[in-house]
Protein backbone atom coordinates (compact mmCIF):
# COMPACT_ATOMS: atom_id res chain seq x y z
CA UNK A 1 0.00 0.00 0.00
CA UNK A 2 2.70 2.46 1.04
CA UNK A 3 4.67 1.57 -2.10
CA UNK A 4 1.77 2.51 -4.34
CA UNK A 5 1.40 5.80 -2.50
CA UNK A 6 5.09 6.62 -2.91
CA UNK A 7 5.08 5.50 -6.52
CA UNK A 8 2.29 7.91 -7.49
CA UNK A 9 3.72 10.70 -5.35
CA UNK A 10 7.21 10.45 -6.86
CA UNK A 11 5.74 10.14 -10.35
CA UNK A 12 3.65 13.30 -10.00
CA UNK A 13 6.55 15.23 -8.48
CA UNK A 14 8.89 14.09 -11.25
CA UNK A 15 6.38 15.08 -13.91
CA UNK A 16 6.02 18.51 -12.31
CA UNK A 17 9.79 18.96 -12.08
CA UNK A 18 10.00 18.39 -15.83
CA UNK A 19 7.80 21.47 -16.26
CA UNK A 20 8.83 23.74 -13.45
CA UNK A 21 7.08 26.85 -14.75
CA UNK A 22 3.67 25.46 -13.75
CA UNK A 23 4.74 25.42 -10.12
CA UNK A 24 6.26 28.88 -10.32
CA UNK A 25 3.16 30.33 -11.98
CA UNK A 26 1.01 29.47 -8.95
CA UNK A 27 3.59 30.93 -6.60
CA UNK A 28 3.91 34.17 -8.54
CA UNK A 29 0.14 34.44 -8.86
CA UNK A 30 0.01 34.37 -5.06
CA UNK A 31 2.72 37.01 -4.70
CA UNK A 32 1.15 39.29 -7.32
CA UNK A 33 -2.36 39.12 -5.82
CA UNK A 34 -0.99 39.91 -2.37
CA UNK A 35 1.08 42.79 -3.74
CA UNK A 36 -1.90 44.30 -5.55
CA UNK A 37 -3.90 44.98 -2.40
CA UNK A 38 -1.66 47.70 -0.90
CA UNK A 39 -1.75 49.48 -4.25
CA UNK A 40 -5.55 49.34 -4.20
CA UNK A 41 -6.35 50.22 -0.59
CA UNK A 42 -3.43 52.51 0.17
CA UNK A 43 -0.10 51.83 1.82
CA UNK A 44 -0.89 53.08 5.28
CA UNK A 45 0.78 50.86 7.85
CA UNK A 46 -2.22 50.44 10.15
CA UNK A 47 -4.63 49.40 7.38
CA UNK A 48 -2.12 46.92 6.01
CA UNK A 49 -1.57 45.31 9.42
CA UNK A 50 -5.31 44.70 9.74
CA UNK A 51 -5.81 43.57 6.14
CA UNK A 52 -2.70 41.41 5.93
CA UNK A 53 -3.87 38.04 7.30
CA UNK A 54 -7.15 38.09 5.39
CA UNK A 55 -5.54 39.12 2.11
CA UNK A 56 -2.85 36.45 2.38
CA UNK A 57 -5.47 33.79 3.04
CA UNK A 58 -7.78 34.86 0.24
CA UNK A 59 -4.80 34.89 -2.14
CA UNK A 60 -3.81 31.42 -0.93
CA UNK A 61 -7.37 30.20 -1.55
CA UNK A 62 -7.37 31.56 -5.08
CA UNK A 63 -3.88 30.30 -5.90
CA UNK A 64 -4.63 26.80 -4.66
CA UNK A 65 -7.96 26.79 -6.49
CA UNK A 66 -6.49 27.87 -9.82
CA UNK A 67 -3.94 25.07 -9.62
CA UNK A 68 -6.66 22.47 -8.97
CA UNK A 69 -7.58 22.07 -12.62
CA UNK A 70 -4.19 20.51 -13.25
CA UNK A 71 -4.70 17.92 -10.52
CA UNK A 72 -6.43 15.34 -12.73
CA UNK A 73 -6.59 17.02 -16.15
CA UNK A 74 -3.32 15.72 -17.67
CA UNK A 75 -3.91 12.16 -16.48
CA UNK A 76 -7.48 12.33 -17.73
CA UNK A 77 -6.44 13.44 -21.19
CA UNK A 78 -3.81 10.75 -21.79
CA UNK A 79 -5.93 7.98 -20.24
CA UNK A 80 -3.71 7.34 -17.21
CA UNK A 81 -6.58 8.12 -14.90
CA UNK A 82 -8.74 5.37 -16.39
CA UNK A 83 -5.92 2.91 -15.85
CA UNK A 84 -5.72 4.04 -12.23
CA UNK A 85 -9.43 3.38 -11.82
CA UNK A 86 -8.96 -0.13 -13.15
CA UNK A 87 -6.08 -1.13 -10.86
CA UNK A 88 -6.61 -3.42 -7.89
CA UNK A 89 -5.22 -0.74 -5.57
CA UNK A 90 -7.73 1.34 -3.57
CA UNK A 91 -8.55 4.41 -5.61
CA UNK A 92 -8.72 6.72 -2.60
CA UNK A 93 -5.09 5.90 -1.80
CA UNK A 94 -4.02 6.84 -5.33
CA UNK A 95 -6.10 10.01 -5.10
CA UNK A 96 -4.52 10.84 -1.73
CA UNK A 97 -1.06 10.45 -3.28
CA UNK A 98 -2.02 12.79 -6.11
CA UNK A 99 -3.43 15.31 -3.63
CA UNK A 100 -0.23 15.13 -1.56
CA UNK A 101 1.87 15.79 -4.64
CA UNK A 102 -0.42 18.68 -5.52
CA UNK A 103 0.01 20.15 -2.04
CA UNK A 104 3.80 19.83 -2.14
CA UNK A 105 3.79 21.67 -5.46
CA UNK A 106 1.26 24.41 -4.69
CA UNK A 107 0.60 24.57 -0.94
CA UNK A 108 4.08 24.17 0.48
CA UNK A 109 5.64 26.97 -1.63
CA UNK A 110 2.95 29.33 -0.33
CA UNK A 111 3.86 28.42 3.25
CA UNK A 112 7.53 29.02 2.54
CA UNK A 113 7.02 32.38 0.85
CA UNK A 114 4.63 33.59 3.56
CA UNK A 115 7.31 35.43 5.62
CA UNK A 116 8.21 37.53 2.62
CA UNK A 117 4.58 38.39 1.96
CA UNK A 118 4.01 39.06 5.66
CA UNK A 119 6.78 41.66 5.62
CA UNK A 120 4.94 43.52 2.86
CA UNK A 121 2.10 43.93 5.36
CA UNK A 122 4.35 44.90 8.30
CA UNK A 123 3.37 41.80 10.27
CA UNK A 124 5.45 41.16 13.39
CA UNK A 125 7.76 38.16 13.75
CA UNK A 126 5.32 36.17 15.89
CA UNK A 127 2.40 36.92 13.59
CA UNK A 128 4.45 35.62 10.67
CA UNK A 129 5.24 32.40 12.54
CA UNK A 130 1.57 31.93 13.37
CA UNK A 131 0.64 32.59 9.75
CA UNK A 132 3.13 29.99 8.53
CA UNK A 133 1.80 27.46 11.00
CA UNK A 134 -1.82 28.20 10.04
CA UNK A 135 -0.96 27.96 6.33
CA UNK A 136 0.89 24.70 6.97
CA UNK A 137 -2.28 23.25 8.52
CA UNK A 138 -4.73 25.00 6.22
CA UNK A 139 -3.33 24.60 2.70
CA UNK A 140 -3.57 20.76 2.79
CA UNK A 141 -7.29 21.17 3.57
CA UNK A 142 -7.63 23.38 0.50
CA UNK A 143 -6.01 20.72 -1.68
CA UNK A 144 -8.13 17.95 -0.13
CA UNK A 145 -11.50 19.70 -0.50
CA UNK A 146 -10.52 21.09 -3.88
CA UNK A 147 -9.80 17.60 -5.20
CA UNK A 148 -13.52 16.75 -4.85
CA UNK A 149 -14.44 19.71 -7.03
CA UNK A 150 -11.66 18.97 -9.52
CA UNK A 151 -12.91 15.39 -9.85
CA UNK A 152 -16.53 16.49 -10.30
CA UNK A 153 -15.75 19.05 -13.01
CA UNK A 154 -13.29 16.85 -14.89
CA UNK A 155 -13.37 17.50 -18.61
CA UNK A 156 -16.26 19.98 -18.54
CA UNK A 157 -16.32 23.12 -20.62
CA UNK A 158 -15.76 26.21 -18.50
CA UNK A 159 -14.43 23.92 -15.79
CA UNK A 160 -12.34 26.56 -14.04
CA UNK A 161 -15.14 29.03 -13.35
CA UNK A 162 -17.50 26.24 -12.36
CA UNK A 163 -14.88 24.79 -10.03
CA UNK A 164 -14.55 28.09 -8.18
CA UNK A 165 -18.32 28.30 -7.80
CA UNK A 166 -18.44 24.85 -6.23
CA UNK A 167 -15.34 24.98 -4.09
CA UNK A 168 -15.00 28.52 -2.73
CA UNK A 169 -18.04 28.30 -0.40
CA UNK A 170 -16.55 25.12 1.09
CA UNK A 171 -13.27 26.93 1.75
CA UNK A 172 -14.91 29.38 4.16
CA UNK A 173 -14.08 27.56 7.45
CA UNK A 174 -10.39 27.41 6.55
CA UNK A 175 -10.40 31.10 5.67
CA UNK A 176 -12.16 32.07 8.91
CA UNK A 177 -9.87 30.13 11.23
CA UNK A 178 -6.69 30.62 9.23
CA UNK A 179 -7.02 34.37 9.11
CA UNK A 180 -8.49 34.41 12.61
CA UNK A 181 -5.40 32.74 14.09
CA UNK A 182 -3.12 35.48 12.75
CA UNK A 183 -5.61 38.14 13.83
CA UNK A 184 -5.76 37.03 17.48
CA UNK A 185 -2.00 36.48 17.69
CA UNK A 186 -1.61 40.27 17.58
CA UNK A 187 -3.59 40.52 20.84
CA UNK A 188 -2.51 37.49 22.83
CA UNK A 189 -0.42 34.59 21.60
CA UNK A 190 -2.25 32.13 23.87
CA UNK A 191 -5.53 32.75 22.00
CA UNK A 192 -4.03 31.19 18.89
CA UNK A 193 -4.24 27.67 20.25
CA UNK A 194 -7.99 26.98 19.69
CA UNK A 195 -7.77 28.28 16.13
CA UNK A 196 -4.86 26.03 15.26
CA UNK A 197 -6.48 23.06 16.98
CA UNK A 198 -9.69 23.55 14.98
CA UNK A 199 -7.67 23.84 11.76
CA UNK A 200 -5.94 20.60 12.75
CA UNK A 201 -9.34 18.97 13.33
CA UNK A 202 -10.57 20.10 9.90
CA UNK A 203 -7.40 18.73 8.39
CA UNK A 204 -7.93 15.30 9.95
CA UNK A 205 -11.60 15.15 8.90
CA UNK A 206 -10.74 16.25 5.36
CA UNK A 207 -7.86 13.75 5.24
CA UNK A 208 -10.28 10.91 5.95
CA UNK A 209 -13.33 11.96 3.96
CA UNK A 210 -12.01 13.96 1.00
CA UNK A 211 -10.09 11.12 -0.72
CA UNK A 212 -13.19 8.92 -0.47
CA UNK A 213 -15.45 11.63 -1.89
CA UNK A 214 -12.96 12.49 -4.66
CA UNK A 215 -12.61 8.89 -5.74
CA UNK A 216 -16.42 8.54 -5.79
CA UNK A 217 -16.53 11.70 -7.91
CA UNK A 218 -13.84 10.33 -10.26
CA UNK A 219 -15.84 7.14 -10.76
CA UNK A 220 -18.91 9.22 -11.62
CA UNK A 221 -16.97 11.41 -14.04
CA UNK A 222 -15.26 8.54 -15.84
CA UNK A 223 -17.93 5.88 -16.01
Amino acid at each position, binding site marked *: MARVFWCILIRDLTLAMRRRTDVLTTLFFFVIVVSLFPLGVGTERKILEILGPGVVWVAALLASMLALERLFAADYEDGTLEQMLLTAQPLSLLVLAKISAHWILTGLPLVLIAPLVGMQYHLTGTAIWVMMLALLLGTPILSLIGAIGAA*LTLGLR*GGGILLSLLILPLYIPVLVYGAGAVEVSRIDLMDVQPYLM*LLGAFFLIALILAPLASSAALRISLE
Partner: protein
Amino acid sequence: MSLNWFKLASPASFYPVAGRLVPLFWILTVGLLLLGFYWGFFQTPDQLGGSNAQKEYYRIIFIHVPAAWMSMWLYMVIVGWAAIGLVFNTRLSFMMANAVAPTGAIFTFLALWTGAFWGRTSWGTYWDWDPRLTSELVLFFLYIGYIALHSAIDDTRRADRASGLLAIVGLVMVPVIYWSINCPDPTQCAALHQRSDLTRIDGNILFSMLIMTLGFWMYSFATSFMRLRGIILTREAESAWVRELLSQENPK
Protein backbone atom coordinates in the same frame (compact mmCIF):
# COMPACT_ATOMS: atom_id res chain seq x y z
CA MET B 1 -55.46 -0.42 0.98
CA SER B 2 -51.93 -1.30 0.19
CA LEU B 3 -49.93 1.01 -1.99
CA ASN B 4 -47.17 -0.26 -4.20
CA TRP B 5 -44.43 2.31 -3.62
CA PHE B 6 -42.08 0.71 -6.12
CA LYS B 7 -44.61 1.25 -8.86
CA LEU B 8 -44.55 4.98 -8.09
CA ALA B 9 -40.77 4.99 -8.40
CA SER B 10 -41.10 4.62 -12.15
CA PRO B 11 -41.31 7.94 -14.02
CA ALA B 12 -44.02 6.58 -16.32
CA SER B 13 -46.41 5.75 -13.49
CA PHE B 14 -45.55 8.78 -11.35
CA TYR B 15 -46.15 11.25 -14.17
CA PRO B 16 -49.99 11.01 -14.08
CA VAL B 17 -49.99 10.78 -10.26
CA ALA B 18 -48.01 14.03 -10.03
CA GLY B 19 -50.39 15.57 -12.54
CA ARG B 20 -53.37 14.76 -10.33
CA LEU B 21 -51.57 15.96 -7.18
CA VAL B 22 -50.54 19.37 -8.58
CA PRO B 23 -54.04 21.00 -8.45
CA LEU B 24 -54.57 19.60 -4.96
CA PHE B 25 -51.32 21.17 -3.73
CA TRP B 26 -52.17 24.48 -5.41
CA ILE B 27 -55.56 24.55 -3.63
CA LEU B 28 -53.83 23.81 -0.31
CA THR B 29 -51.20 26.50 -1.03
CA VAL B 30 -53.72 29.22 -1.78
CA GLY B 31 -55.95 28.24 1.13
CA LEU B 32 -53.15 28.13 3.68
CA LEU B 33 -51.53 31.34 2.45
CA LEU B 34 -54.86 33.21 2.58
CA LEU B 35 -55.46 31.95 6.12
CA GLY B 36 -51.88 32.78 7.10
CA PHE B 37 -52.06 36.29 5.66
CA TYR B 38 -55.45 36.95 7.27
CA TRP B 39 -54.26 35.71 10.65
CA GLY B 40 -50.93 37.49 10.33
CA PHE B 41 -52.48 40.85 9.48
CA PHE B 42 -55.62 40.92 11.61
CA GLN B 43 -55.28 38.50 14.51
CA THR B 44 -51.79 39.39 15.74
CA PRO B 45 -50.61 42.26 17.97
CA ASP B 46 -49.48 45.49 16.29
CA GLN B 47 -46.04 45.33 17.79
CA LEU B 48 -43.48 42.82 18.93
CA GLY B 49 -41.18 42.92 21.93
CA GLY B 50 -41.08 44.97 25.12
CA SER B 51 -38.98 48.08 25.68
CA ASN B 52 -37.70 48.53 22.13
CA ALA B 53 -40.82 47.39 20.31
CA GLN B 54 -40.89 46.50 16.63
CA LYS B 55 -43.98 48.01 15.06
CA GLU B 56 -46.03 46.85 12.06
CA TYR B 57 -42.96 45.97 10.03
CA TYR B 58 -42.31 42.90 12.19
CA ARG B 59 -44.99 41.21 10.06
CA ILE B 60 -42.19 40.43 7.59
CA ILE B 61 -41.67 37.51 9.97
CA PHE B 62 -44.56 35.69 8.27
CA ILE B 63 -42.59 35.56 5.02
CA HIS B 64 -39.03 35.68 6.31
CA VAL B 65 -39.01 32.85 8.85
CA PRO B 66 -41.04 30.34 6.77
CA ALA B 67 -38.84 31.08 3.73
CA ALA B 68 -35.68 30.53 5.80
CA TRP B 69 -37.05 27.27 7.23
CA MET B 70 -38.08 26.02 3.80
CA SER B 71 -34.71 26.95 2.30
CA MET B 72 -32.95 24.70 4.79
CA TRP B 73 -35.53 21.93 4.63
CA LEU B 74 -35.53 21.77 0.83
CA TYR B 75 -31.73 21.39 0.83
CA MET B 76 -32.20 18.37 3.10
CA VAL B 77 -34.82 17.06 0.67
CA ILE B 78 -32.38 17.41 -2.24
CA VAL B 79 -29.66 15.60 -0.32
CA GLY B 80 -32.13 12.89 0.71
CA TRP B 81 -33.28 12.21 -2.86
CA ALA B 82 -29.72 12.41 -4.19
CA ALA B 83 -28.55 9.89 -1.59
CA ILE B 84 -31.43 7.53 -2.42
CA GLY B 85 -30.58 7.92 -6.10
CA LEU B 86 -26.89 7.21 -5.57
CA VAL B 87 -27.59 4.16 -3.41
CA PHE B 88 -30.52 2.54 -5.25
CA ASN B 89 -29.79 3.90 -8.72
CA THR B 90 -33.33 5.15 -9.22
CA ARG B 91 -33.94 7.68 -11.97
CA LEU B 92 -36.96 9.37 -10.43
CA SER B 93 -35.20 10.36 -7.20
CA PHE B 94 -32.57 12.33 -9.13
CA MET B 95 -35.32 14.00 -11.14
CA MET B 96 -37.01 14.88 -7.87
CA ALA B 97 -33.81 16.37 -6.40
CA ASN B 98 -33.41 18.32 -9.59
CA ALA B 99 -36.97 19.60 -9.53
CA VAL B 100 -36.74 20.82 -5.94
CA ALA B 101 -33.48 22.79 -6.36
CA PRO B 102 -34.83 25.97 -8.04
CA THR B 103 -37.63 26.29 -5.47
CA GLY B 104 -35.09 25.95 -2.68
CA ALA B 105 -32.83 28.57 -4.23
CA ILE B 106 -35.78 30.95 -4.58
CA PHE B 107 -36.75 30.51 -0.92
CA THR B 108 -33.14 31.15 0.14
CA PHE B 109 -33.12 34.32 -1.92
CA LEU B 110 -36.51 35.33 -0.51
CA ALA B 111 -35.26 34.84 3.07
CA LEU B 112 -32.21 37.02 2.36
CA TRP B 113 -34.26 39.66 0.56
CA THR B 114 -37.00 40.01 3.19
CA GLY B 115 -34.30 39.85 5.85
CA ALA B 116 -32.59 42.85 4.26
CA PHE B 117 -35.78 44.94 4.53
CA TRP B 118 -36.40 43.80 8.08
CA GLY B 119 -32.80 44.52 8.95
CA ARG B 120 -33.04 47.99 7.45
CA THR B 121 -35.96 48.93 9.68
CA SER B 122 -34.87 47.27 12.91
CA TRP B 123 -31.04 47.26 12.80
CA GLY B 124 -30.61 50.21 10.45
CA THR B 125 -28.69 48.21 7.85
CA TYR B 126 -29.60 46.08 4.86
CA TRP B 127 -26.75 43.69 5.42
CA ASP B 128 -24.49 42.69 8.24
CA TRP B 129 -22.06 39.81 8.68
CA ASP B 130 -24.25 38.17 11.25
CA PRO B 131 -23.71 34.37 11.50
CA ARG B 132 -27.18 33.44 10.30
CA LEU B 133 -27.14 35.89 7.41
CA THR B 134 -23.78 34.61 6.31
CA SER B 135 -24.73 30.95 6.54
CA GLU B 136 -27.94 31.61 4.60
CA LEU B 137 -25.79 33.29 1.93
CA VAL B 138 -23.50 30.25 1.86
CA LEU B 139 -26.59 28.04 1.50
CA PHE B 140 -27.58 30.15 -1.50
CA PHE B 141 -24.12 29.57 -3.01
CA LEU B 142 -24.53 25.82 -2.43
CA TYR B 143 -27.85 25.84 -4.29
CA ILE B 144 -26.31 27.81 -7.15
CA GLY B 145 -23.34 25.42 -7.26
CA TYR B 146 -25.69 22.43 -7.42
CA ILE B 147 -27.74 23.92 -10.25
CA ALA B 148 -24.65 25.15 -12.12
CA LEU B 149 -22.88 21.79 -11.96
CA HIS B 150 -26.00 19.97 -13.10
CA SER B 151 -26.53 22.23 -16.08
CA ALA B 152 -22.83 22.18 -17.07
CA ILE B 153 -22.82 18.41 -17.67
CA ASP B 154 -24.55 17.23 -20.84
CA ASP B 155 -24.74 13.55 -19.94
CA THR B 156 -27.79 13.36 -17.65
CA ARG B 157 -26.61 10.33 -15.72
CA ARG B 158 -23.27 11.92 -14.88
CA ALA B 159 -24.96 15.27 -14.15
CA ASP B 160 -27.36 13.66 -11.68
CA ARG B 161 -24.72 11.69 -9.86
CA ALA B 162 -22.09 14.45 -9.78
CA SER B 163 -24.43 17.14 -8.50
CA GLY B 164 -25.93 14.67 -6.02
CA LEU B 165 -22.48 13.98 -4.60
CA LEU B 166 -21.82 17.72 -4.43
CA ALA B 167 -25.06 18.24 -2.48
CA ILE B 168 -24.00 15.56 0.02
CA VAL B 169 -20.53 17.10 0.44
CA GLY B 170 -22.28 20.45 0.97
CA LEU B 171 -24.46 18.99 3.70
CA VAL B 172 -21.38 17.68 5.54
CA MET B 173 -19.88 21.15 5.33
CA VAL B 174 -22.97 23.07 6.49
CA PRO B 175 -22.50 22.55 10.25
CA VAL B 176 -18.78 23.29 9.93
CA ILE B 177 -19.47 26.49 8.02
CA TYR B 178 -22.20 27.47 10.46
CA TRP B 179 -19.98 27.09 13.51
CA SER B 180 -16.99 28.71 11.88
CA ILE B 181 -19.00 31.80 11.05
CA ASN B 182 -20.58 31.65 14.48
CA CYS B 183 -17.01 31.89 15.86
CA PRO B 184 -15.60 29.73 18.65
CA ASP B 185 -15.97 32.40 21.29
CA PRO B 186 -19.48 33.96 21.30
CA THR B 187 -18.38 36.87 23.48
CA GLN B 188 -16.01 38.08 20.79
CA CYS B 189 -18.49 38.58 18.00
CA ALA B 190 -21.99 39.90 18.38
CA ALA B 191 -24.89 38.21 16.66
CA LEU B 192 -27.80 40.38 15.56
CA HIS B 193 -30.33 37.54 15.52
CA GLN B 194 -31.42 36.93 19.06
CA ARG B 195 -31.62 33.34 20.19
CA SER B 196 -34.90 32.03 18.85
CA ASP B 197 -37.26 30.37 21.25
CA LEU B 198 -40.60 29.29 19.87
CA THR B 199 -42.24 28.98 23.29
CA ARG B 200 -41.73 32.68 24.00
CA ILE B 201 -43.52 33.82 20.87
CA ASP B 202 -47.12 35.04 21.07
CA GLY B 203 -49.53 32.22 20.16
CA ASN B 204 -51.20 34.08 17.29
CA ILE B 205 -47.88 35.02 15.70
CA LEU B 206 -46.65 31.44 16.00
CA PHE B 207 -49.90 30.15 14.50
CA SER B 208 -49.71 32.36 11.43
CA MET B 209 -45.99 31.61 11.04
CA LEU B 210 -46.66 27.87 11.07
CA ILE B 211 -49.62 28.22 8.68
CA MET B 212 -47.44 30.25 6.30
CA THR B 213 -44.72 27.59 6.57
CA LEU B 214 -47.24 24.89 5.66
CA GLY B 215 -48.43 27.06 2.78
CA PHE B 216 -44.86 27.47 1.51
CA TRP B 217 -44.34 23.76 1.88
CA MET B 218 -47.41 22.98 -0.23
CA TYR B 219 -46.19 25.56 -2.75
CA SER B 220 -42.86 23.69 -2.90
CA PHE B 221 -44.73 20.45 -3.60
CA ALA B 222 -46.83 22.07 -6.31
CA THR B 223 -43.95 23.76 -8.15
CA SER B 224 -41.61 20.77 -7.74
CA PHE B 225 -44.18 18.38 -9.16
CA MET B 226 -44.89 20.69 -12.09
CA ARG B 227 -41.16 20.94 -12.78
CA LEU B 228 -40.81 17.20 -12.26
CA ARG B 229 -43.42 16.51 -14.94
CA GLY B 230 -41.45 18.69 -17.33
CA ILE B 231 -38.21 16.91 -16.48
CA ILE B 232 -39.83 13.49 -16.91
CA LEU B 233 -41.18 14.40 -20.33
CA THR B 234 -37.84 15.83 -21.48
CA ARG B 235 -35.80 12.86 -20.33
CA GLU B 236 -38.22 10.15 -21.40
CA ALA B 237 -39.02 11.86 -24.70
CA GLU B 238 -37.81 8.83 -26.65
CA SER B 239 -39.87 6.27 -24.73
CA ALA B 240 -43.08 4.74 -26.03
CA TRP B 241 -45.42 6.02 -23.34
CA VAL B 242 -44.47 9.65 -23.89
CA ARG B 243 -45.01 9.34 -27.65
CA GLU B 244 -48.38 7.75 -26.99
CA LEU B 245 -49.27 10.53 -24.56
CA LEU B 246 -48.27 13.22 -27.02
CA SER B 247 -50.17 11.62 -29.89
CA GLN B 248 -53.29 11.50 -27.71
CA GLU B 249 -52.96 15.18 -26.87
CA ASN B 250 -52.12 16.35 -30.39
CA PRO B 251 -53.88 14.02 -32.81
CA LYS B 252 -52.68 14.65 -36.32
